[in-house]
């Protein structure tokens, strides 16, 4: 197989683009896809300070690297989750990238700074681990961005992640979630802008990007995520994609283009019910926000 752009031998085939790419053309293609997502959805504006949430996995390290290549003013944020050896290795990958590239990495540690780890927090609060983890990340990423004077939090959610979440939300017709499943959530109500610049890249592409750039990332799967519903949705979508390349892209971007606005009123109605959390001030629908309730239960 030849590279679509320069006819050199290809190292990766992307079937939804009906194309193969050599190393250099693939890296350029990846940067172009991120640039297009940023421009199409007005994610990052000139002068914005961006904080990228870095897990040590392929997506967030690829995102950090691409944003730096695109001359975005970006620092990394690593949150230690206290998931044993998995977290130790993930932190090592994030620090190694920062050291090798002279990039700034802000670090937070859930056990040391907040007082609980994900396995304990999930068990005590009777939440699924991924739910306790996501809740903690959303809260602490935003807090770190506000504290650090950043305008934007960027996360490494890719096309596969977004298509899988959309699939789950459609299966259950979770209209309030559908109303805010967007690649950009604007700033407001104490939240900085949240953006997902990798929505035009699949996770096979972000992994390939790291391999081809020599970026050492956490290859192992999070032990807490094994067997979760999200991975089942991804397997189902990959089975469809294998038969019909481009299905995931069409599903997600078709939703954004044709269906997402239909659910906006649900999201707006929820926004209008928000009030400040009595403990931390974060906007919430209850008196105390979900994160503060999790912290209270996890600390016992």
């Amino acid at each position: 197989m030849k590279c679509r752009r320069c006819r050199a031998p290809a190292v990766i085939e992307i079937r939804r683009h009906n194309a193969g790419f050599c190393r250099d053309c693939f890296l350029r293609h990846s940067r172009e896809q991120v640039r297009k997502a940023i421009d199409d959805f007005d994610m990052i504006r000139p002068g914005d300070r961006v904080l990228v949430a870095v897990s040590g996995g392929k997506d967030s390290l690829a995102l950090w690297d691409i944003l730096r290549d695109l001359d975005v003013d970006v620092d990394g944020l690593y949150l230690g989750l206290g998931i044993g050896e998995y977290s130790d290795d993930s932190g090592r990958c994030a620090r190694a990238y920062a050291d090798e590239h002279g990039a700034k990495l802000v670090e937070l540690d859930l056990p040391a700074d907040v007082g609980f780890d994900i396995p304990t927090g999930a068990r005590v609060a009777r939440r699924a681990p991924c739910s306790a983890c996501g809740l903690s990340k959303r809260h602490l990423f935003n807090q770190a961005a506000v504290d650090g004077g950043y305008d934007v939090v960027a996360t490494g959610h890719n096309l596969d992640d977004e298509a899988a979440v959309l699939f789950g939300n459609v299966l259950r017709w979770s209209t309030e979630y559908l109303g805010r499943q967007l690649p950009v959530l604007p700033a407001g109500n104490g939240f900085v802008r949240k953006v997902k610049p990798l929505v035009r890249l699949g996770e096979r592409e972000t992994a390939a990007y790291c391999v081809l750039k020599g970026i050492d990332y956490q290859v192992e799967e999070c032990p807490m995520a094994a067997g979760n519903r999200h991975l089942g949705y991804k397997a189902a979508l990959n089975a469809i994609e294998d038969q019909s390349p481009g299905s995931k892209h069409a599903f997600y971007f078709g939703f954004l283009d044709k269906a997402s606005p239909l659910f906006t009123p649900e999201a707006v109605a929820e926004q209008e019910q928000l009030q400040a959390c009595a403990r931390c001030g974060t906007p919430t629908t209850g008196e105390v926000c979900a994160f503060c309730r999790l912290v209270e239960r996890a600390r016992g």
Partner: protein
Amino acid sequence: MVLRNPRREVELHGPMRVHALLERLEINRESVLVIRGDTLVTGDIQLHDEDEIEIRPVVSGGSS
């Protein structure tokens, strides 16, 4: 050949194309990268007995 998540090693005899290898192992090509040495190989590449191959899953993640 090294397969990951869970990590295991299997020995297969070539020549065999990458596509055929993945089919034989019943692995969806959308869910992995195939790595020979320090670079990636596409599905049409012929693999030989002496090649050391890693099949690396790319599907990750939990979701709240």
